[in-house]
């Protein structure tokens, strides 16, 4: 089992290997469809980004409301493919760690290789499990998006699986 702490340093990012389980801890940013569209539009318009991509990871997720006494509600991954149109642009601007579920487009895979980025998969539907890994949660931008706002989490030992690593390694399904 590999581990990585955010913000990551170069060595830690390069230590991730496709087909391995990963435990992730530290400061993790959260954004899904509307956040991606806004980040993309901001970049196209030459504006400033709401957080520094350097050393950061983005988790495709929109939580259910936090019950009293807990930092967050259910917090599992959403389908990565919907971020595919925006991800290459974000990577060209320094984003190198993405977490979601399911396959990526050819264009995203090529951008991952070009930018030496990493794609980790979270376990789909396991929102209650991931809620347990979240120690704090705050909205850092776009609060009007409600459950889709841009969040910053503090996470501990979030269980993930490395699908694509920064060396060009890609997880291959076993043949059955």
């Amino acid at each position, binding site marked *: 089992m590999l581990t990585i702490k955010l913000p990551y340093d170069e060595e830690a990012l390069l230590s991730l290997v496709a*087909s391995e*389980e990963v435990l992730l801890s530290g400061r993790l940013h959260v954004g899904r469809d*509307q956040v991606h569209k806004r980040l993309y539009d901001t970049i196209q318009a030459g504006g400033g980004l709401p957080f520094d991509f350097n050393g950061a990871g983005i988790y495709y*997720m*929109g*939580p*259910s*409301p*936090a*019950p009293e006494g*807990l930092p967050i*509600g*259910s*917090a*599992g991954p*959403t*389908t990565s*493919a*919907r971020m595919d149109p925006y991800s290459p642009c974000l990577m060209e601007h320094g984003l190198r760690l993405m977490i979601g*579920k*399911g*396959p990526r487009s050819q264009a995203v895979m090529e951008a991952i290789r070009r930018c030496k980025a990493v794609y980790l*998969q979270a*376990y*789909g*539907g*396991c*929102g*209650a*499990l991931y*809620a*347990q890994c979240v120690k704090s949660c705050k909205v850092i931008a776009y609060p009007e998006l*409600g*459950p889709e706002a841009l969040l910053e989490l503090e996470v501990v030992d979030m*269980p993930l*699986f490395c699908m694509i690593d920064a060396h060009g390694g890609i*997880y291959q*399904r*076993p*043949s*059955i």
Partner: protein
Amino acid sequence: MSSMDAVERISEALGRAVRGLEPDVVERIRRAFDEERSKEGRMVLSRILENIEVAGRTGLPLCQDCGMFWCLVEVGRSCRTSLGDIEAVINAACGRAVVDYSFRRSVVEDPVFTRKNTGDNLPPVIHWGLVDGEDVTISFLLKGFGSENCSGVRMLRPTEGADGVVAAVVEMMKAAGGKPCPPVFLGVGIGGTMDRAAFLSKKALLRPVRQHSHDGKLASLEERLLEEVNKLGIGPGGLGGTVSCLALSIEADATHIAGLPVALSVNCWADRRAVIHFKGGVLC
């Protein structure tokens, strides 16, 4: 029964559904863990079982996508409660469940332009059907959209037969791959018009796990489809494996001489259903 009692019964059932699965569904997932041959597939299934345990213990929703309310109301022809009253009870119960059980607010009122959140997950998608007697049965799916986005309809030629149905379902599942949180439950609707087939595919998802169609030919087609989808090797979490589909049901209906509509409703492993039966059709 007062309408408040009916609202409470329905909202409690929705609250149970968002936090836990029916015993037949959990049992099927446990069995999948025993059947799965890939190491990664078993790893995903063990996380899923752990998640079910955590949700049960903490009362957190199983998945942050608490779904869109999809509902089939089967009203007895002799039922004395008005449809308007039944509709009001359903809307109130959905609205209450969302608040009481901390559902994520996932519904937007304008799909194309503003995409403004309705703030209460209303409106539900309601289908009405007539049955004999006076009872009312309300069946819900909490329909998550990671899987719904993989659902679809194909209008086949009338001569394509069972092979065509299999090819259509396999093609849609191949495109879905790891996107819908596999292993999945599948509902297949065949016949009717385009929309009727789509409705039937949802209705098929309401059948208890492994309850085959009463029609022998359809039951065999269910078996064949399940086998063909599992041959794709998508596996749990899309990481590959022997279990891609946990169960598959077909509902079929009459259609036109010129067509063979086939609809597929894809549901993630978190097959969240609630069925509430009102004996005598008394809701208020």
